[in-house]
Each structure stands twice: as structure tokens, then as C-alpha cells.
């Protein structure tokens, strides 16, 4: 195999090495192109990772359903009727729609997004108060600083316990004060704090000024009976959220005598939509970076071809001598193409090394993702391999231009004395 011919490589490094400066200038274009490509790709990856981190802890395949008021009169009911779900709806939906993986019912004290005054030893906070099932933790994960989240026993025994957010903690407790085991008072009922959670750098639907108590405790303490405020639902990974969303709405509409075309009565929010939007945004970003990078690379490789073209012109005589000495056209061609490949590949590797260095600097500066979504900016091995392969194949094609020019020169013209 000629590729492993030691002499070929000696010839090539000889030729390239005899004019280091020109060789270096030739490579500069490809080095920069590679840097741009890798930086763009790496940044796009960093952004994508950053968004992933923002949404970490929130089940992407989830939706929320709550009741609103009807917009259409139906079956003798007037419009504007408030829809109030019952706790039994949770079981009905779970039974009828097998695609539902988790269904966490919730009830809220006061109005939606309303605030309730929470007391503790003369300190107060205006917080949202939710009655929840522990399953909610599978959909919107709480990062606990202390203690635990609600659990099954809390539900079964209707324990008077609560988990509070960091904001609420700050309002009710002094700095550094222990909260676990302390009592807080809501609407005259005392709850013992079992956990405190803090923001976890991602979207937090409930906020940090909130108090979570077991659903069953809520029912007893605040006399909510069988009412249910809203449902957080996670569907199976392979199921499309809108499909389940429609099924749920159909069932609920039938149950609560809502006009089939009423769009307002049942409120819902599809989390997956946001995820899809963002992932298509980052995918477009990645595609765009790749596109720009590849064309920059093409420009760089063309620069190499250009310099080789000049080199060939300069080496006309040498090539003529070589051919007079018995170099066949294919040998001459091969040498120039391999020169193009070696230059490109070498320059590409240098550019890659530099850009990886820059990316790791960027990573150490902003890679935590605190200020904006930018986490672990780096290229993947397939991304690198594809760009590298593409670059090398481009260099083969482009190297053929000077190579063909070199063999077009007839030895007799090359050897003509000036």
C-alpha cells in the first residue's frame, strides 16, 4: 500500500519542511476555520447543555390540568360556570388512560396563585399553600436543603407536617435558625416543618415562597372535602403529551357536562411544548454552527489549494526534472494531493487543539450555567470526526486542482532553459 510507503512521507515532509514559513501561512486558514467550527459547535452544545440543566428535575413529558370557567352554555348550564374537579377524577383518569405514568392531584388554599398568611412566633409570610401527594416530586423535583419531602405515611396518617421553600424560611425564621421540627400556623392549624427546599437553577413552577402539606391533611385541616384544584401529570416517555391532553379533556368534559367545543373550561399547560421549542432551537443553532463552520473550513481548504497552486508554479522545474527522471503523472499527482491532505489534517488538529483549549477556558469562566444557560461547552466525538473527515475529503478534492496543474506541465517545457 503506497500510503504506508516511508519514502512518500519522507518526500512530503521534505517538501513541506523546506519552507516552514510558507507551510505555516498555508495552514493558518484551516487552523482558523477549525477554531471557528469547533467554537461554534462547542458553544451550541454548551447552550443545549445549559438548557438541559435549566429543565433538569422537571419531567419533560408532563402537563398540568386545572379547572376554569365555562365559555359555552351546555345541557342547561349557563356559561361562566366554575369547574371544580373531585379527587375521584384522578383515579378515573388513571384507570382510563394507561399512558399516564404519574398523576399528582393538588389543592391550593385560597384562590389560584393566591397568598395565605403563615404565622410563626410573631413572624409572618404571605405564601402559597398546597395540598400535595408525594408523587409531585417526580414531576417537579424539589431540591431539599434540609429534611425530607412529603411521603406516603404523611398521606396515610394525614400528618400535620409541611415542606417549605427557602423564601418562606427566610420570612419565618432567623438566619441560621433550625426549621426542622418547628411549628408554623396556617389558618389556625399548626404544621411541623419536615423539609426546606431551595431554588435549583431551573424553572420552578411553584416558586420558593410556598408551603406543601399532605393532601389528606389539607382535606381535614381546611375542610376541602373531595375537591381537587389541579393535576400534575407525567405521561409515558414514548407518548405524545397532546394526545393524552385531549383524552383527559374529553373525559373531563363528559363528566362535568362541558360543551365539547368549549376551549376555556379546562385549563392545561403542556410542558413538553417548551422542551420541544427549546430543543428545536438548540438543534437549529447546532445545524447553523455546523453549516457556517463547514463553509469556513471550505474557504480554508481552498486557501491551501491556492498556495499549493503557487507552489506548483514555483516547482515547475523541479516537477519537470522529476518527470524526466521517471516520475509518472500519478506519482506527481499523489504527492501533491497527499501534501494537501497532510497540511489540512495537521492544521485541522492544531486548530482543534486550540479551540478545545479556548472552550475549556470558557467553561471554567461561565460553564457553571448560573448566569445564563451555558454548561460544559465541548464538541462530541462524532461531531469532531465528521468535521475532520469532511475536511480531509475536501482537501483531497481541492488538492486535485494543483495536482492536475502539475501534471499538465510537460517536462520539456519545464526543462526549457531560460
Amino acid at each position: 500500500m503506497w500510503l504506508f510507503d516511508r519514502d512518500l512521507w519522507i518526500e512530503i515532509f521534505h517538501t513541506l519542511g523546506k519552507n516552514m514559513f510558507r507551510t505555516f501561512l498555508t495552514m493558518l486558514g484551516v487552523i482558523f476555520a477549525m477554531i471557528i467550527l469547533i467554537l461554534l459547535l462547542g458553544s451550541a452544545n454548551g447552550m443545549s447543555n445549559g438548557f438541559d440543566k435549566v429543565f433538569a428535575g422537571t419531567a419533560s413529558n408532563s402537563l398540568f390540568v386545572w379547572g376554569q370557567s365555562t365559555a359555552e352554555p351546555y345541557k342547561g348550564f349557563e356559561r361562566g360556570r366554575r369547574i371544580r374537579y373531585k379527587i375521584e377524577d384522578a383515579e378515573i383518569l388513571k384507570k382510563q388512560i394507561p399512558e399516564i405514568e404519574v398523576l399528582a392531584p393538588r389543592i391550593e388554599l385560597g384562590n389560584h396563585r393566591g397568598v395565605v398568611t403563615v404565622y410563626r412566633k410573631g413572624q409572618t409570610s404571605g405564601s402559597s399553600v398546597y395540598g400535595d401527594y408525594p408523587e409531585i416530586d417526580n414531576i417537579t423535583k424539589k431540591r431539599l436543603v434540609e429534611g425530607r419531602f412529603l411521603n406516603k405515611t404523611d398521606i396515610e396518617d394525614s400528618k400535620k407536617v409541611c415542606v417549605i421553600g427557602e423564601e418562606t424560611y427566610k420570612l419565618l425564621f432567623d438566619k441560621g435558625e433550625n426549621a426542622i421540627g418547628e411549628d408554623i400556623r396556617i389558618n389556625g392549624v399548626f404544621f411541623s416543618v419536615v423539609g426546606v427546599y431551595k431554588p435549583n437553577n431551573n424553572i420552578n413552577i411553584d416558586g420558593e415562597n410556598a408551603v406543601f402539606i399532605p393532601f389528606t391533611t389539607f382535606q381535614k385541616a381546611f375542610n376541602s372535602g373531595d375537591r381537587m384544584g389541579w393535576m400534575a401529570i407525567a405521561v409515558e416517555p414514548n407518548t405524545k403529551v397532546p394526545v393524552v391532553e385531549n383524552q383527559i379533556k374529553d373525559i373531563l368534559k363528559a363528566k362535568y357536562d362541558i360543551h365539547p367545543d368549549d376551549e376555556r373550561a379546562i385549563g392545561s399547560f403542556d410542558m413538553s411544548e417548551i422542551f420541544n421549542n427549546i430543543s428545536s432551537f438548540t438543534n437549529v443553532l447546532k445545524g447553523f454552527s455546523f453549516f457556517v463552520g463547514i463553509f469556513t473550513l471550505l474557504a480554508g481548504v481552498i486557501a491551501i489549494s491556492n498556495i499549493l497552486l503557487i507552489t506548483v508554479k514555483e516547482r515547475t522545474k523541479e516537477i519537470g526534472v522529476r518527470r524526466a527522471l521517471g516520475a509518472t503523472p500519478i506519482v506527481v499527482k499523489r504527492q501533491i494531493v497527499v501534501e494537501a491532505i497532510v497540511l489540512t489534517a495537521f492544521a485541522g488538529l492544531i486548530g482543534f487543539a486550540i479551540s478545545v483549549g479556548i472552550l475549556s477556558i470558557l467553561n471554567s469562566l461561565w460553564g457553571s450555567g448560573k448566569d445564563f444557560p451555558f454548561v460544559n461547552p465541548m464538541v462530541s466525538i462524532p461531531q469532531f470526526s465528521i468535521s475532520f473527515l469532511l475536511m480531509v475529503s475536501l482537501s483531497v478534492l481541492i488538492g486535485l486542482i494543483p495536482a492536475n496543474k502539475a501534471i499538465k506541465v510537460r517536462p520539456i517545457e519545464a526543462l526549457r532553459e531560460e
Partner: protein
Amino acid sequence: MIEIKDLHKSYKMGSNSLHVLKGINFTAEEGELVAIMGSSGSGKSTLLNILGMLDGANSGEYNLDGVPIKDLTETKAAQYRNKFLGFIFQSFNLINYKSALENVALPLYYQKVGRKERQVKAMSYLERVGLKEWAEHLPSELSGGQKQRVAIARAMAAEPKVLLADEPTGALDSTTSYEVMDLIQKINDEGNTILVVTHEEDIAHMCKRIVHLKDGVIVEDKKIDQVRAEQYV
């Protein structure tokens, strides 16, 4: 060794065509040392190019060691040149970034001779031209005469049937010229066939036969008594 019959060559110059070689008949036996003379425009360079397979004839026959040279592809021509011919140029045409040894080894590289063997062979030819100590030097570090001797070693390295020398002393002073001619004569003494294109009378007389070209035909072809270059060195 070389057989040429009724060779014609013309170049197209726009609408006119320039008839350069007008029926050349020429033979050279093995071991001959032939000087091809003629003023510029006589067609001697064209003849040498055709002999060197750097250019093709329009009509006529050319046999080299019994092999008909006709309608060669570039690849075939390169292989034949490598196998049959050794070139010596007026301006030496050494590759300036290769050492003397590497220059001599180049034709062997194109013959796909292994690296070790190539080095040994190239070194032995350098020794024969008296430049063994200069093996690792670049052409820029050699004098004109030394360069031409490296070029001669290179031409011989592939052990060709015929050496073609195009004004081998054209760029050299007379003392160096005689040194180079002395070397050429010695190589010829060993039985190598050599064709020398020159316009210098004294150089021509150091060959064994002189062929005079004028306006594309051979006007004179005579055997002469060789003047040995040794006495001038």
C-alpha cells in the same frame, strides 16, 4: 542501440507550421560517444527531446534497444525514460532542497528500489564521480563542476541504456568543462552509450563521432579521433 528512420517534426505556430526536423536518419551503436552539433535553430534540441521521449515525432521510426518508441502515454514515457535514459542538463537541474545523495537516489526511488539499496547504490555512483565526501551536502554548497558530477551520477544511477547530455559543459568554465568531459569519457570507456549535444568544437572533439545538424537535416556524420580530456585536467 538507437535507430532513427526518416524522423519529421514540425511545430504549429499559429497558422504557420515550423518544420524543424526534416527527415533524420541516424543510428548509434552500443558504447558510442556521439556529439550532436549545430547552431541554434538547427533542430538539435528538438532531436534530443525526441530521443529523450520528452517530445513525440510527427512521423518516422524510433527504436531504442529494439523497443519501438511511438505514441507513448505520459505514464509509459516516464517509465521508459526511467528505465532507458539518463539525462544530464546544462543547468544541472538538481533538486535544491535534497542532498547530493538524495538527488542521485531519486531515479532509483521512481524505480521503486528499496531505501537501503538505493542509498548504497547512490553512494557508489557518487564515489565514482569522486564526491563521496560531499554526499550530505546540498547543491547550493557545491561548485558548478561538482553539481554537474552529481547530475552525472544521478543520470547513471538508474543504469540506463543511453545517457543524454544537453550542453553538459555550457554553464562551466573550460577547466571544469574538461573535468566533466574526462568523467564522461571514462564512463564511455566502461561501455556506456552517450549522446552529447554541444556547440563547442573542443567538447565535440572529445567525443568519438560528430553529427552536424543544419536546418533540420544531418549534413555531416563523421567518426573522429578522440581527444582525451585527461591531458587538460
